[in-house]
């Protein structure tokens, strides 16, 4: 790909903080190919014909209901979008996988079944399996004959996964490892035929194992009683001297963390389209309700405060879509010429994802918080009916909450993303120190704000705070969780604002959404940055730096009330989330 000046350009992790990006350089839903759109239509049809009629049965956990829908999806190829042809998969690109994910996520419970099976249930084998393991298990996972599950969490080891206590011991003959212990909160636990289980060999070497349900000594617990996604299966899995053939060790012995952590980048990225799919459903429900429900003689959708909510739901949804597909496009650029037939293909795939690990965390955090906002306002628009189980929005509200917790809590992801950016800087992969110094000399020379574009200034806000925080805490910065999370929030804010602006630049009326998003986003960034500055400076330096910050955060004010009304009117006319 070429940049705006016509020179070769390749996106790099965290690079958005330093480099200018042109509108044509980010992948957006508007760039979907005809084939992508065909995949979207097939998935939509599948949803209408096969999932929607069974939603209540899935919700009630009727035996076999979800699995039979999952198997039907497998017939259409929806469970194995990335898996190579030779194992029965579709061998399509990452964007196709994201498009499918978005469209099976309209209901949280089915999304959990589908996502856990085709993601953490299948991908570890694809990326780390030996040829024999792949041939044994992938075709059976692809067809849905085996449902996949992933066993990492334990009762006292959630975010702190490496504290797992499940043990593996090699038997005297050296043929099998004997697994002992228990895993908690395992998605698909009740129906899975194959479990990817993390255990410590001799209590030390953290290792992944492929464990079939039929192995003696394996059992699953009762369905856990959850707040939401009640139609998904979540159980404990117990291991009582379960013999696992040595050939079923997945990846290298003692390197289970490599398996566990590499899967997470893709999982976090996919949470973007999952949240987007759920949010589109709720926004559609809310738009319909706002048109139908009358109060004080008119449809409630005609009231300003309801329009504010509808517009804001759409704006955040637009932003989550923008960052999800931007990262997808960037990963794909790094995968140019990728083929599963080339040696080291799995490593290439993981490296491309790892490059954008911070951005994957941003997608996870931003999209899950977006969905929580959308379902919350969805309930509010429905008023008393939104609190009633007869309305889909009540379920969506409960189902949404888990997204901020799984795939790494949002708190862990904020810390991780900041840590990754700092690490890339230390390794010389990202010139943050140079950029901070350059900014400081610009400020010293009075060149403030020095840039008319608010998106470019949002990056300066991040750099300003990074410089100040680093001077204050130096090597102990990684102990300062609040400051790190704040920095992460600033980088995420800049990323989202830039992605929204770049996407809208190539569209007809989405620019209105971008203007609202940037104006509000800058105010939010200034607030976060003030917290960081006040934690690092005091007296005159604090006052002076806060003054600089304020200049950076300035925006040409637009009438966001009027803009939101216009955005809402268009949504209400269309009766669903459409952007142009």
């Amino acid at each position, binding site marked *: 790909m070429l940049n705006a000046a016509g020179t070769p350009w390749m996106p790099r992790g965290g690079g958005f903080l330093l480099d200018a990006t042109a509108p044509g350089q980010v992948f957006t839903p508007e760039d979907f190919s005809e084939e992508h759109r*065909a995949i979207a239509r097939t998935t939509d049809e599948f949803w209408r014909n096969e999932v929607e009629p069974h939603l209540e049965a899935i919700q009630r956990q009727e035996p076999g209901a979800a699995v039979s829908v999952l198997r039907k999806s497998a017939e259409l190829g929806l469970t194995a979008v990335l898996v190579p042809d030779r194992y029965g998969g579709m061998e399509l690109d990452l964007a196709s996988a994201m498009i499918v994910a978005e469209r099976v996520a309209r209901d949280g419970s089915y999304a959990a079944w589908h996502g856990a099976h085709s993601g953490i249930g299948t991908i570890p084998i694809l990326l780390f399996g030996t040829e024999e393991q792949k041939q044994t298990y992938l075709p059976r996972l692809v067809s849905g004959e085996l449902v996949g599950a992933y066993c990492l969490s334990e009762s006292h080891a959630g975010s702190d996964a490496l504290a797992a206590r499940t043990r593996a011991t090699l038997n005297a003959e050296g043929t099998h490892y004997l697994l002992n212990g228990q895993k908690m909160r395992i998605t698909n636990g009740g129906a899975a035929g194959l479990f990817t289980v993390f255990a410590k060999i001799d209590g030390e070497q953290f290792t992944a194992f492929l464990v079939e349900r039929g192995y003696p000594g394996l059992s699953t617990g009762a369905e856990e009683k959850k707040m939401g996604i009640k139609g998904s299966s979540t159980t404990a899995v117990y291991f009582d001297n379960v013999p696992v053939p040595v050939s079923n060790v997945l990846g290298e012995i003692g390197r289970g963390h490599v398996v566990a952590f590499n899967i997470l980048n893709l999982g976090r990225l996919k949470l973007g389209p999952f949240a987007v799919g759920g949010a589109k459903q709720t926004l559609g429900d809310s738009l319909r309700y706002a048109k139908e429900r009358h109060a004080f003689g008119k449809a409630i959708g005609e009231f300003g405060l309801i329009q504010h909510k509808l517009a804001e739901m759409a704006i955040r949804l637009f932003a989550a879509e923008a960052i999800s597909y931007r990262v997808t496009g960037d990963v794909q650029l790094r995968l140019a010429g990728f083929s599963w037939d080339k040696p080291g293909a799995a490593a290439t795939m993981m490296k491309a994802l790892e490059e954008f690990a911070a951005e994957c965390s941003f997608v996870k955090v931003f999209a899950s918080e977006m969905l929580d906002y959308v379902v919350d306002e969805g309930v509010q628009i429905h008023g008393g009916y939104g609190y009633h189980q007869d309305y889909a929005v009540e379920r969506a509200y409960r189902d949404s909450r888990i997204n901020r917790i799984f795939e790494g809590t949002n708190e862990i992801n904020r810390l991780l993303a900041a840590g990754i950016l700092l690490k890339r800087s230390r390794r010389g992969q990202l010139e943050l120190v140079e950029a901070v110094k350059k900014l400081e000399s610009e400020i010293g020379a009075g060149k403030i704000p020095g840039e008319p574009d608010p998106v470019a200034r949002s990056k300066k806000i991040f750099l300003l705070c990074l410089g100040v925080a680093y001077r204050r805490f130096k090597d102990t910065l990684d102990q300062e969780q609040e400051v790190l999370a704040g920095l992460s929030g600033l980088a995420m804010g800049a990323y989202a604002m830039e992605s929204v602006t770049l996407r809208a630049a190539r569209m007809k009326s989405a620019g209105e959404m971008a203007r609202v998003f940037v104006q509000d986003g800058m105010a939010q960034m200034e607030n976060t940055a003030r917290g960081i500055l006040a934690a690092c400076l005091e007296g005159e330096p604090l006052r002076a730096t806060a003054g600089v910050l304020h200049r950076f955060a300035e925006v040409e004010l637009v009438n966001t009330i009027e803009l939101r009304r216009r955005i809402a009117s268009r949504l209400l006319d269309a009766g669903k989330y459409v952007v142009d």
Partner: protein
Amino acid sequence: MKIIVAIKQVPVRDSVLQVDASGKWIRESELSFEVNEPDAYALEEALQLKERYGGEVIALCAGPARVSQAIREALAKGADRAIHVESDDLGAADSLGIARLLASAIRSEQPDLVLTGLQSDDLGYGQTGVIMAELLGFPHSTIIMQVEAAGSSVRVKRELENGWFQWMELPLPAVLTIQSGISKLRYATLMGIKKARTKEVKRLSAAELGGLAAPVLSVEKVYLPQKTKETQMLDGTPAEAAAALVEKLRFEARVL
């Protein structure tokens, strides 16, 4: 058996329609399109016939660049190849004009059977298939629910009114217009979508097919149905509301 299926691309069913500036058609720029439903059943019938009797299924579609979506869908579902009659100005054409283009594209293929939907979801004339048969000199039958090959002829089940059916036999080549809902439509699977990449799509211009004739029939005006129903809520106690209702029935509706 060599089967050609003529498909049309129409606005998706739940579209919010707006009349365009000319007042003679709807605004197409903001619409999404899909395969006309009866045509989707025609394609399904063709694919099932191919599965039973062997042969080839060719999708035929006329329209602007956007119809490549419909063509790809037909290929993804299992059509072997496709013909795209490229034309940007079919909106003003009538059934005869379109049937001429399609018949001209069909003639050189020398098919055994031509299938199409009994009518389109947008204009609903139900004429194109029949006129096409006439132009080709093929026998035709309409509102078909079932097709069985019998050597050099086909036996077909036609829908009549009031739940009555008619079985009849036609010599090949023939044109059949297919009824909606007669079978279960297959999906364009992801594998099918991928395979469609390499299938042949022949592009023909209207000029190559003899050109688009000036319409004999033209649309004067399209308009949204006028809403005339109005609901009034009568307030007060039941007795007061009943009295008000009687008064309205007597003096406004004049039915008492």
